[in-house]
């Protein structure tokens, strides 16, 4: 059996309940990283570094810019069609001491730094020993920031909520 050098679909943990759950959780985590600002990612990596917990990594690919063809659906729910492309930056890293862990980062826009930090964090996240740190120090921060953004945006547009009235005009009465 060949080593699964490129099959990063499965996290390294053996404790994962099953593959699809583990994938789902990893996907959720990557989503949080992609939607985050760069500052908290940087802060978390710095704090790992200060605690001596940040291992070395090698770039396996990128960071590099490319395109993703964006699809929509007719009517929002029908047949899919191509809307246009979006610029994305991607990066893949391997941990220097644990080469079988491949971390991936994909983020919209021209953001090489974000993509690399994301890839490193994805790789570290796959190490069981670092999991509690992510659960305690990074994920809640990112989730709170995202929630706050949702609420701020919603509050802003909520002020423009409108009720239209239809009125019966007098002329028709007689």
């Amino acid at each position: 059996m060949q080593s699964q050098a490129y099959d990063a679909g499965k996290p390294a943990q053996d404790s994962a309940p099953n593959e699809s759950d583990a994938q789902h959780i990893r996907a959720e985590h990557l989503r949080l990283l992609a939607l985050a600002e760069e500052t908290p990612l940087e802060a978390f990596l710095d704090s790992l570094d200060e605690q001596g917990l940040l291992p070395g990594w090698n770039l396996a690919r990128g960071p590099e810019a490319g395109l993703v063809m964006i699809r929509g659906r007719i009517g929002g729910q029908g047949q899919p069609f191509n809307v246009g492309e979006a610029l994305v930056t991607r990066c893949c890293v391997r941990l220097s001491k644990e080469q079988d862990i491949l971390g991936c980062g994909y983020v919209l826009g021209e953001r090489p730094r974000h993509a690399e930090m994301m890839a490193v964090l994805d790789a570290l996240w796959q190490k069981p020993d670092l999991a509690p740190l992510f659960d305690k120090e990074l994920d809640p921060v990112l989730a709170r920031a995202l929630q706050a953004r949702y609420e701020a945006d919603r509050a802003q547009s909520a002020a423009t909520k409108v009720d239209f009235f239809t009125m019966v005009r007098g002329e028709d009465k007689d």
Partner: protein
Amino acid sequence: MYVAVKGGEKAIAAAHRLLRQERRGPCDIPELGLDQIAHQLKFAVDRVMAEASLYCPNLAALAIKQAAGDLQEAIFLLRAYRTTLPRFAASLPLETDCMRQSRRISATWKDLPGGQILGSTFDYTHRLLDRSLEGNASCDPAPCAVQETADNKAFACAAESQESPETPESAGSAGFRDTGSFPHPPRLPRASHALEQEGLLERSWSAYEQERQGRMEDAQTLAAIADITRDPLELPCDRPEDRPLRLQMLARADEGFLLGMAYSTQRGFGAVHPFTSELRRGLVECSIVPEELDFPLVIGELEVTECVTISRYTGTALDPCLTQGYGLVFGNNERKALSMSIADRALRAREMEEEETGPAQNPEFVLLHGDNVDASGFVQHIKLPHYVDFQAELSLIRELRKARANKAQDGAKDGAAKEGTETSGGAQA
């Protein structure tokens, strides 16, 4: 036949220097920053992204700066840049139901489930020049005041109560990691939902939806979607299955052209009488399945404007019903989204067995002439040296004139000769 012209390098270089200088303007005026363009000329940026068919606000702002505000030139620059990049993947279709909406209106339902949100809009403004913007007005730091009325809370609750489709139920119970607490945007019902339930809306798209629920759309179905950037247009492109391709071309078509097409159908050159069923604008998450991971992954949010128009149908292809047109455009551009949805509906003329009474119903006319990079390249190329072509033109005209003059002369001679003959004949007689 094309004949090359040589020379002029120095003059061309100087012309480009002059262009750069004029773009910059007088040095005592501060230079425009990209963030200023991206945030203060957002409509320009959004238009450039949509028509360049490349979503990237930074680069669109750069293109606008470099083109000194000539948006079509900026679109050309960004399109050209697009061709230098590799394509990593294609996204899963955007779930616009889960859009984080900054605007959402319906002109057909005043009591829209989920509420009507005006958002920021030019609608209802008085179109009076605001002289207060003349100076360097300071930025108003106060955020848009939120009236926490009962209504607004109800809206928020209504939105939240719609169960987020991606909330993982297994995550908590599996005792692995608690991702269930990560926030997700709510799903908002569509305005046309009630019409669909009542069967008044044409069947085609809801049928697709039902079919899709039954089976997973596999990668091959998605890979087979027609793509105008990879395969050339094949006319007539008027079948129902060509609609995805037409929509892609409309999404990158010139806004002004589409507006004109939509307007022409409303004025009678075509058979569309549209109502705005729903217009949405907001941020929607984009997911891809990267090559090295075999699961879908959210890579960020992009802003889109989506428009569904509905129009009455009393033709022969279907029972009397409401048919729909669809528009989906990058960024904030509702004029284009609306025009696109009307043009989309008009282009379904053959499918709907409608008589073609206007150019907006003709796919060849609309699709081949709507792309402003194509159009502007072809129209503007006649500025470039055509000296040899033109000499040929001149010599042709000279020939024709000569031929005609000769003919006239011969005619005159013939006439004179005839007259002479007659006269002489008469004399003889």
